């Protein structure tokens, strides 16, 4: 019966790499990025305790006052403390960016999965439309969405998410098509597995790394886009201490009070670059081929 029993044991269990967080800390750039991001997240979580002043309290100091001991980033036109506003700004800019990303990723992912899995004529037309939309400048599309939805915090989240749908849909569609071409998906289908079973057990787990990657690589972009709309006056409205809005306030006073725009801009830049650095590192960890080694 067992005349061909193979006594040789299978290959040894592949050594599990250290945790993702540990791997992130091994590279100096991503370690610094994590520290910066932690500080900014703390700003957002503990703003009332960290900020020395109420962010909307006028005349907390002189109008357009230069940085000094009491107001390390100076004060704005209404005498509000810029540092306090930057700290509170984390509470708006970061969650707005994250919400935008999740919404766009969910909608775009669902569309991409449907296109890629169903295929055929539905996909041929859908993919073409996605391609055309993709070529449309995302910021212009977001501005258009705002013109339909109106100006405001929730509206900007939806607008930027809509503008990002084509990008996510395209990538997830591609990943789904590749996943579907896997022989194990074909063999599940040949075995008589239902569509739901194939998607849940075989396709979704296969594209999950792509989804994670897409999320980490685009969080920075989402923060940037929402801030840009606020800067253009189409997003979060003053006097909310959102970074983009603060920069919009500061542009009139570049000559007289540059600190009004330096601090929020720096905060925005640091948030985006640390998220991007972490995203880059995560993509290296998930997909070792992208590491630049031959």
């Amino acid at each position, binding site marked *: 019966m067992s005349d061909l029993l193979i006594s040789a044991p299978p290959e040894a269990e592949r050594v599990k790499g250290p945790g993702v967080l540990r791997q992130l800390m091994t590279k100096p750039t991503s370690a610094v990025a994590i520290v910066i991001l932690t500080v900014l997240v703390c700003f957002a979580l503990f703003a009332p305790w960290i900020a020395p002043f109420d962010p909307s309290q006028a005349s907390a100091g002189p109008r357009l006052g230069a940085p000094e001991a009491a107001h390390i980033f100076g004060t704005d036109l209404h005498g509000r403390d810029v540092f306090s506003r930057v700290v509170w700004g984390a509470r708006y800019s970061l969650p707005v960016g994250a919400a935008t990303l999740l919404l766009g990723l969910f909608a775009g992912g669902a569309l991409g999965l449907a296109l890629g899995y169903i295929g055929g004529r539905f996909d041929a037309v859908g993919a*073409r439309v996605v391609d055309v939309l993709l070529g449309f400048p995302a910021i212009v599309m977001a*501005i258009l969405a705002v013109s339909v939805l109106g100006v405001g915090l929730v509206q900007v989240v939806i607008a930027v998410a809509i503008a990002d749908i084509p990008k996510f849909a395209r990538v997830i569609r591609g990943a789904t098509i590749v996943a579907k071409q896997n022989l194990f998906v074909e063999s599940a289908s040949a075995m008589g597995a239902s569509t739901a079973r194939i998607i849940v057990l075989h396709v979704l787990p296969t594209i999950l790394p792509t989804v994670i990657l897409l999320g980490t690589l685009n969080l920075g972009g989402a923060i940037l886009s929402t*801030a840009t709309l606020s*800067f253009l*006056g189409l997003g979060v409205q003053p006097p909310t201490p959102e970074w983009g809005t603060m*920069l919009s306030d500061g542009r009139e006073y570049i000559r007289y009070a540059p600190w009004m725009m330096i601090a929020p801009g720096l905060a925005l830049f640091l948030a*985006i*670059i640390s998220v*991007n650095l972490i995203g880059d590192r995560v993509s290296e960890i998930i997909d070792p081929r992208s590491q630049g080694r*031959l």
Partner: protein
Amino acid sequence: MTYFLRRILALVPILVLTWSAVFFVFEAIPGDPVNLMLAGVPASEEVIANERARLGLDKPLMERYISFLGRAAVGDLGESFRTRAPVTEMILAQIGPTLQLAAAGLVVGLAMGLLLGVLAGLRPGTSLDTVCTFAALAGSSLPSFWTGMVLIYVFGSILGWVPIVGLGIDALILPAIVTGLFIAGDFARLVRSSIIDASRQDYIRTARAKGLPPIKVVGKHALRNALIPPVTMLGISLSNLIGGAVVTENVFARPGLGTMLVEGVLNKDMPLVQALVVYTTAAYLIINLLVDILYGLIDPRIRHARMAPR
């Protein structure tokens, strides 16, 4: 030749499709156009009815839709609610500065992107790669409106080297850098990964086995193939560039289509916004056609493809 012909013919249905989408999106905007136009000024029923008839709003939806497509094709998309001037004329008057800015930004962006990408991709894993990759990442992380303001402050206010406003060539320097930065980072990353990918292919091993020196292996065999993905992405880079121009114009208070678009949205000047979208899509599709043709010239496999895309 069929390849190019096919691309050109494929343009028509896509154009119709996008313009249809634009039409229906604008139909979905809440608020009666006449009320928007009057902007709160009280008017009699009769005036409103007359305006509706003049704008063709009393006609059924399908009729307006067909007429819209026809008018879009001949460049007659109505008048601005605010200035009452034909929107096509308004756009033509402002297109020059935007094209200047986009062209200058493209040159700056591609130059920076190629330089960083090639330097990083040729010797992956070295410190030069680390520096270039970091610079590219920093570039794409910079909020361009902030970069613009910082540059204005440093070079305009403190140093006084360049004029900040105006339409001269020297007033274009800072905006071009800001716009270029908008695409340079992503472009550099793409160039880098595509060079690394090309260097891994079997034909590179063949080239080495022929005894070619590294300069020819990389410079001829790898680079030519590595350029294909960046060229296909050029269309998307260009559209990002237009997006960048919108922001840059705003920061530098330059006249142009971007400023016009933002003002149009804020003022709810729908005919103007609609016309801007219609012509941006047309421009974008034509640009993409040119990119496709360029792609075909670089990659013989595309040129000879007899199979229709599936």
